[in-house]
């Protein structure tokens, strides 16, 4: 049978650990809301928009331009690689359709897919991918960073993590990155949710 003094110690110690442990878990998961890195990324960007870095890009026509030269317009960015058999094709199709929607609505919005596979995705591959994804040409642009260090900086800013898939391809966290006129990534939206992306862009115009 436990002595009263020991019972006091037991209860006090257990209560202290319970409070500290629960508090720590609560803090680490932002109130039991954030368990994955992707959720954390989306929440973090929504609360603290991130400025796009100055990255030199090369588009599907072989023309180079700084990413920040597009500032002043609302942008929808996504990150792909053209050899991707699944996710990037969905992203590409989404981007193409979004571009067409904005064009039909008369809205000046830049929709661009940025390839992180600079070694393979030369302009001709980007152009071939675009042609394959859309039967009717749209204002959707494709580009690749010219310098690998700048590519890594752009991916880090967007919180995109690219890992090899073991089959000469990559896996990465995919989303539509909504960029405001001040060149800040303000929100990430599921790639399937075109309507939400369109509504969000319209609030920034």
């Amino acid at each position, binding site marked *: 049978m*436990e002595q009263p003094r020991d019972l006091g110690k*037991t209860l006090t110690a257990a209560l202290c650990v319970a409070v500290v442990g629960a508090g720590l878990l609560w803090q680490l998961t932002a109130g039991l809301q954030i*368990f994955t*890195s*992707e959720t954390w990324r989306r929440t973090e960007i929504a609360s603290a928009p991130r400025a796009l870095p100055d990255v030199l890009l090369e588009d599907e026509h072989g023309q180079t331009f700084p990413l920040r030269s597009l500032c002043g317009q609302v942008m929808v960015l996504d990150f792909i690689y053209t050899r991707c058999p699944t996710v990037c094709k969905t992203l590409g199709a989404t981007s193409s359709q979004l571009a067409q929607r904005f064009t039909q609505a008369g809205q000046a919005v830049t929709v661009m897919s940025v390839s992180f596979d600079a070694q393979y995705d030369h302009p001709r591959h980007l152009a071939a991918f675009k042609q394959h994804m859309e039967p009717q040409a749209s204002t959707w642009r494709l580009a690749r960073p010219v310098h690998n260090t700048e590519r890594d900086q752009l991916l880090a800013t967007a919180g995109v993590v690219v890992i090899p*898939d073991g089959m000469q391809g990559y*896996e990465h*966290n995919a989303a539509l990155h909504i960029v405001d006129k001040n060149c800040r990534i303000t929100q990430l939206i599921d790639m399937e949710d075109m309507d939400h992306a369109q509504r969000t862009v319209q609030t920034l115009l």
Partner: protein
Amino acid sequence: MRNAPFKRFCDHLAQHLHMTPVQGLRAWGLLAVLLWLPGVGGTLKHSMLTHMGVQVSLLAVAGHGLGRAWLAHHPEHVQAVRPYRWALLLMAVFTLMVWMVPRLLDLAVEQPEIDLIKALSLVLCAGLPLAWAWPQLPAVAQGVLHLEALATLWRMGWLYLDSPSRLCVRYGLADQHSLGRGLMAAGAVYALWLAWTVLRGQTVPIPMNVAETHP
């Protein structure tokens, strides 16, 4: 329910290896350090299955071994920790819960400081407290904890296996599914061991004094 078979295994291993408590402390400490060092630790972190299934588990096991060796070396501490057994158990539970959060696993891969905190916390705040608390818990509490651990293994395994998207950005989907299968399999083995222990009806008298456990 008692961990008599596991205790007999540990004691048999210690006797076979002719390890004194001090040697046990060194051996378990060395294991913990090896599991964390970039060579072994880095290799284990390459895959989600080996990171969570092997490294995290073995770090907790190393801590448990350290805890047992410490008590063998300092038998007077057995009674000293008794009033804190529930607090120690809670500490172990919360620590293990923290390292089940997928985002924390990613952070451990990305940041060496977080990886060090992971190793230290699993050894000192999960394995070691569990070693100190477990023998002093009532049998019913141990039974409940066994069942909850089994359920957690299967819940986590099912989550990783069934989720269509990657829960950790540092690991691929196939890797995640491998971990899920691994956890489900570990749960199956654990369930069999529990069933065997129950069927054999093993009971261990609760030691009334230190001399019975530490002659």
